C-alpha cells in the first residue's frame, strides 16, 4: 500500500481539490487493496426474538466455513481450498472480489444463547440466527388490574 500524503496548505489548492483528493478514492486505496476485496460485508438485523447476521461471501461452499464461539466472541472464518488455481488457465483482466479466505470477529453479549446459534449458506450468503435469551426478550406489557 502506498501512503499518500495530503497537505491542505500547499499553495494553489482549493478546498474542492482537497475534497477530491480525500474522497475521490475508493476505499481500497485508503485501506489497502487486499482488505476491501477479501473481507466480506456483513449485515446485522434484530427482531424481538433474535439477531440475524448475514455475511455476503459468494463463491464458497458450506464446508469452507468455520464458525466458533469463544467466550464473548463469535469468530467466522473461511478458507477455500485452492482448487481454483488448477483450472485458472486464463488471466485476470479485472478482479473486484476475492473471498478465498477471511476472518471476522464479532462481540456477542450475554443476551445471546450461544449454543443455539444456527447457520446456513445459501446463494452466496451465510445467514446466522442468534437467538436471544428468554429473559431479555421484550415482553408484551402486562396490564395490572386495580382491585
Amino acid at each position, binding site marked *: 500500500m502506498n501512503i499518500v500524503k495530503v497537505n491542505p496548505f500547499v499553495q494553489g489548492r482549493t478546498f474542492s481539490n482537497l475534497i477530491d483528493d480525500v474522497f475521490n478514492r475508493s476505499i481500497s486505496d485508503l485501506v489497502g487493496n487486499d482488505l476491501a476485496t477479501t473481507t466480506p460485508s456483513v*449485515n*446485522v438485523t434484530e*427482531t424481538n426474538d433474535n439477531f440475524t447476521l448475514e455475511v455476503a*461471501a*459468494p*463463491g464458497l*461452499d458450506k464446508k469452507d466455513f468455520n464458525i466458533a464461539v469463544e467466550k464473548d466472541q463469535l469468530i467466522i472464518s473461511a478458507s477455500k481450498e485452492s482448487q481454483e488455481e488448477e483450472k485458472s488457465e486464463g488471466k485476470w483482466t479485472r478482479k473486484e*472480489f476475492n473471498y478465498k479466505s477471511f476472518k471476522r470477529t464479532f462481540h456477542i453479549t450475554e443476551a445471546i444463547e450461544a449454543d443455539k446459534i444456527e447457520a446456513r449458506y445459501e*446463494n*452466496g450468503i451465510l445467514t446466522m440466527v442468534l437467538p436471544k435469551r428468554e429473559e431479555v426478550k421484550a415482553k408484551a406489557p402486562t396490564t395490572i388490574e386495580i382491585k
Partner: protein
Amino acid sequence: MAVPGYDKSGITISLEENKLKIVGKKEESTDRKFLMKEFDFTTFQRLFYLPEDVQKDKIEATVENGILHLVIYKAEVKPAINVSIK
C-alpha cells in the same frame, strides 16, 4: 460477478449491440431493523462493453453460490490465407 443472495430468477441479462447489461432485482422486506448494514444487493445494474471480436450469440450464464458466471467466447480467428503469386 458476485451476486450474493440471488438465484437465477432475479437476474436479467441483455445484450444490445455491444452493451452487455446485467440487472438484478429482488424483493426484500423493508421492516427489518438493521444494527449494521454493510451491503445491500436489492437492486443493481452493471454495464459492460464487449469488444467486437466475440461471439455474441454464444454467451453462457450460470449462477452458483452467489456468483454469476458469464462465459463469452472469442470469435474464431480465421487462418491467414496465403495468396500465391501466379
